[in-house]
């Protein structure tokens, strides 16, 4: 019986095109993920909140038990866990960041 060898080129090129499309979409997907992640980091770190706590922790009049308790409650309403001690000891935790410093000035 004779084997029909017609149409091999078309199938070969079709297979090549499919492989190219798959690899391109893989590379493109990597670019998209990297782009999204790198743009989120600018908004994610709670720099100002931690500095706020550091300034509260720098003076003993704002580091009394009652003030710290109220700060913890107000932080919790925003979804953060915070605590601080005089002098300069600050702990802050939110969904993305965990911050714990013995001396928050450094």
């Amino acid at each position: 019986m004779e084997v029909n060898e017609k149409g091999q080129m078309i199938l070969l090129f079709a297979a090549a095109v499919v492989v190219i499309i798959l690899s391109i979409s893989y590379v493109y997907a990597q670019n998209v993920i990297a782009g999204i992640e790198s743009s989120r980091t600018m908004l994610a770190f709670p720099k100002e909140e931690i500095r706020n706590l550091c300034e509260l922790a720098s003076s003993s009049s704002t580091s009394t038990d009652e003030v710290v308790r109220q700060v913890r409650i107000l932080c919790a309403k925003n979804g953060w866990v915070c605590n601080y001690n005089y002098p300069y000891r600050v702990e802050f935790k939110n969904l993305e960041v965990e911050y714990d410093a013995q001396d928050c000035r450094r």
Partner: protein
Amino acid sequence: MEDGKLSLDLLMGLSIFLFTFIFVANFLPGVFADVRNEINLANQAYRISTLLVEDPGYSSSWYNITEDRCRTEEFRPGLAVYDLETGVKYNNLSVEKIQAFARLLNNTTCIERVRFYLGLNLSTLGGQVFRFNVSLKNLAGDLVTYNRSVLLNHGDKIPVTQVVRFERIVYLDKWADNCNVTIEGQNVAIADRCVAKLEVSVWI
């Protein structure tokens, strides 16, 4: 196999020719690179404004560097006041440091050193070189003057191409000439401080 409509050697030859053509085109500088790197401008503007407003600079006496020493000394400009007890006073800018910064930016050699130490000159690493302009304006939009001379409006000349600008609200450690606002006919200092707006513009 010999019944194919396109000759295989023709396609191979064409592909090799196009590959070579594109690689040669890639070697021409600036044609393809410029379009990609304009995405970075916003990041650079944010970074430079944060560096100037929230950092006291390195070393602690960087503002004493004169125009002839700027080529040899390593430094990083930062305008925030540093208090020995409480540390960095964020958003509180020192007029002395601003004047030193303006002096350095006025000198043609020193502005390139400042550009390098701010991380805007990445040519040695095979990257972009950014141009920048920094200005300090009061809340009405006028340039802040101290002892009747403009404090800070220095850097490269702002072009008409795409420029990204980042603004910060700051307050100075000394009273400038025009930092007060007019509220109901009276000259008022916001929160008893000399409040101003620092604008950092970055472009390629």
